[in-house]
C-alpha cells in the first residue's frame, strides 16, 4: 500500500445542483493527516451533501475530490478501501447481533481489524451477542462507527454522529472520536452543535446555504469576531438595534425573537452604558448575562441567523 500523504483530503470546487436548487456551491478545502475536521452549519446548509460527494455516494456536478491520494471519479474502489463512513439516518439489520453485523461488514473488505477489540473500543462488549434492535441510540451510533472501522481505514467520515443522543452518550462518543485521533486517524464530521465542534475539531468549515463562509481553527474563528464578549438579555418589546449599536464598545447587535446579544470587546464599558441607556428609557431587562463569545456567535455574526432556527 502506498504511503499515507500528509494531505489526506483535497477537494476543489465541488458543486451539486438539484434542478434549480444549488445544494453545494463550489466548496474547496484540504484536510491533513490526523486532523479532526468539522463541517458546521444549520440543517440544509449542504454539509451532508458535501460529505456524501467525498465518499462517492453522490456524484458532484463539477469539481474534484482526492481522498487518501485517490481520485473519487477514477479510483472509487480504492477510496472505499481507505475510508470508513457513518451515514445520517442509517438503519442496520435489526435482527442480527452486534458481532454478526460486524463480521458481515468486515467480510466486504480485504483487510480487517480484530472484532472483539473493536467492540471493546466502542464500549459495546456487553452487547456483543445482543440484537441490534435492543441497542440504545448511543449504542447504535457507536455500532455505526464500529462498522466504519472494521477495515482499519485511514479516514473516517461521520455524518451528524451525535444528533438525537443524550448528553452522556454524546460525551462517550466524543471520547471515542478523540481516541481515534490519538491513533492517527483522520476524521471529517458534520454537526450543528457548536459545543461539539469546539471540543472535537482542529479546524472548522462553516457552511451556509451551500457556501463555505469561513474556515479556521475554533479559536481563530472566535477571534475573527473581534469581540471576545457578549452581553445577552431579554426584553419583550421593540428596541431599536441602531440605538444599541451606539452604546460604547458594541461591535454588533444580534436579535433572535426577544433575545438581544451585544458583541463587545470592552465588556465593562458596554455594561455601564447599557444600564444608563435602559434606566433613562425606563426599560425593564430580564435575564441579563455576560459570557465569552462562542462559535454560535461567529455563525450569527456571519449570517445574521442562528445555527438552529426554531
Amino acid at each position, binding site marked *: 500500500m502506498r504511503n499515507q500523504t500528509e494531505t489526506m483530503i483535497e477537494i476543489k470546487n465541488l458543486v451539486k445542483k438539484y434542478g434549480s436548487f444549488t445544494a453545494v456551491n463550489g466548496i474547496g478545502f484540504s484536510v491533513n493527516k490526523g486532523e479532526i475536521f468539522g463541517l458546521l452549519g444549520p440543517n440544509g446548509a449542504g454539509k451532508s451533501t458535501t460529505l456524501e460527494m467525498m465518499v462517492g*455516494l453522490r456524484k458532484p456536478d463539477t469539481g474534484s475530490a482526492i481522498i487518501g491520494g485517490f481520485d473519487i471519479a477514477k479510483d472509487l474502489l480504492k477510496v472505499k478501501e481507505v475510508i470508513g*463512513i457513518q*451515514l445520517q*439516518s*442509517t*438503519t442496520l439489520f435489526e435482527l*442480527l447481533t452486534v458481532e454478526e453485523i460486524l463480521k458481515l461488514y468486515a*467480510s*466486504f473488505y480485504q483487510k480487517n481489524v480484530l472484532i472483539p477489540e473493536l467492540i471493546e473500543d466502542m464500549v459495546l462488549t456487553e452487547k456483543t451477542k445482543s*440484537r441490534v434492535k435492543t441497542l440504545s441510540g448511543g449504542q447504535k451510533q457507536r455500532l455505526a462507527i464500529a462498522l466504519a472501522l472494521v477495515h482499519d481505514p485511514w479516514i473516517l467520515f461521520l455524518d451528524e454522529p451525535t444528533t438525537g443522543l443524550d448528553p452522556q452518550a454524546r460525551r462517550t462518543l466524543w471520547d471515542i472520536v478523540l481516541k481515534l485521533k490519538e491513533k492517527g486517524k483522520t476524521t471529517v464530521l458534520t454537526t450543528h452543535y457548536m459545543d461539539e465542534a469546539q471540543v472535537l475539531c482542529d479546524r472548522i468549515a462553516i457552511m451556509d446555504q451551500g457556501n463555505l463562509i469561513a474556515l479556521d481553527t475554533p479559536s481563530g474563528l472566535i477571534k475573527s469576531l473581534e469581540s471576545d464578549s457578549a452581553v445577552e438579555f431579554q426584553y419583550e418589546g421593540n428596541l431599536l438595534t441602531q440605538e444599541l449599536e451606539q452604546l460604547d464598545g458594541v461591535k454588533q447587535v444580534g436579535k433572535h425573537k426577544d433575545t438581544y446579544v451585544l458583541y463587545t470587546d470592552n465588556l465593562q464599558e458596554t455594561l455601564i452604558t447599557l444600564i444608563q441607556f435602559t434606566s433613562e428609557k425606563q426599560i425593564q431587562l430580564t435575564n441579563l448575562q455576560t459570557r465569552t463569545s462562542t462559535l454560535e456567535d461567529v455563525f450569527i455574526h456571519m449570517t445574521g441567523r442562528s445555527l438552529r432556527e426554531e
Partner: protein
Amino acid sequence: MKAYWQLTLSQLRIFLRNRQVLFWTLAFPIFLMIMLGSFLGDGNGVSVSIGVVDQDQTTLSKEFSKTLGKIETVNLEPIDSKEKALAQVKKGNLQLVVVIPQGYENQMMDAATTTPFELPIYYNETDVAVSQIGMTIVNSVVDGISKEKANYTPVIVTHANGIEALDLKYIDFLVPGILAMMIMSNNMNGVAGQIAAWRERGILRRMQGTTLKASTFIAAQITARLLLNGMQALIVLGVAHLIYGTQVNGSWLSLITFVILGTLAFMAIGFIIAGVAKTPESAGPIAGFLSFPMLFLGGVFFPIRDMPAFLQPIVNVLPISHLSHALRETMNVGTSFMDLGSEALILGGWLVGAFIVASYTFKWE
C-alpha cells in the same frame, strides 16, 4: 467470496429470526391447501341421487327398485309420495325421480300386451349433466328388464373395463398449484418488499459505501432465498403427503429444477418491482397487482382449460401457468424433464428477460 457467504448467512438469519414472516409465509399456503383440499378433495366420483316412488308396491316393482339400487353410482331413496319427491328435486337433493305407477306388475305379467308400459321420470333441468347420467342408468335398467321379458338374446355386448391409470383427486391438482403460488408470492412480493424497504432505510446505501459489489449482494440474496424456498416447498409437500398422501410420481431432480427456475424467475420480477417502486409502501400494491390475477388465471386453483377462450392467450404467457403446469406434470403424471422442455424454456425466458430489465431498474438508493 467471504462477503457472499456472510451475506447469505445473514439473510438466512434474518429470515429465521423474523418468526412472524416465517410463520405466515408457511401457514398461509398450508391453511389454503387444507381448506380447499378438505372441501373439494374428493371431487372425482359422480353419484346420482334417485328417488323412487313405488305406487305399485308389488314384488316386481320392488325388484325394479332393487336392481336400480345395486348400481354403484346410484343413491336410491324410496319416497312415499310423488309430491314429496318432486319437492326434493326442486331443492336439488335429488337429481331424478322415477315413479312406478300402479298396475306395473299386472301389465308385466300380462304377456299379451303390446303397448309398452310407461315409467314417468322427473329430473332437475338445472343440473343437466348429472341428470343425464341418471337417465342413462334408469334406461339401462328398464332396457334390461324389457329384454328379459322378451326373451331377447343379445348378438353383441360391450365389456367395460375401467382402467385406473392414475388415482388423481382435486388435492393432487391443488398441491403443485399451492407450491407454485408460494414460490410466486414469497419471491416476487418478498424481494420487492424487502429490497424497497432496505433502500428506504438506507441499508443499501450504507453497503454501497463499502467495497461490496452489487453482483455479490444479489447473488447472496438469491442463494438465501433459494435455500429458504426449497425448505418451505419441502415442508408443504411433507404436510400434503402426511394429510392427503400426495405423491411425487416424477423425478425429484426435475421437480427441484422447476422450483429453482420458478424461484429465480419470480425473484427477478421482484427486483424489477423494487426498482420501479418509489417507496416500500408502493412496492406491496404493485406486487399484489401482479400476483393477484396470476393466482386466479395461472392454473393454481383451477385448470387453465376451464378459463374463457379470450383469456387463454394471456394465461399462456404467464410464468405461473408454466410453473404450475410443470410442477403438476412432474408430481402427478411423472412427465420427464425433457417432455417439459417448453415449460422450462418459457420460464427460463422470463428469468433472463426479467434479470436484464432488473439490472437496468435496480438502484441502491
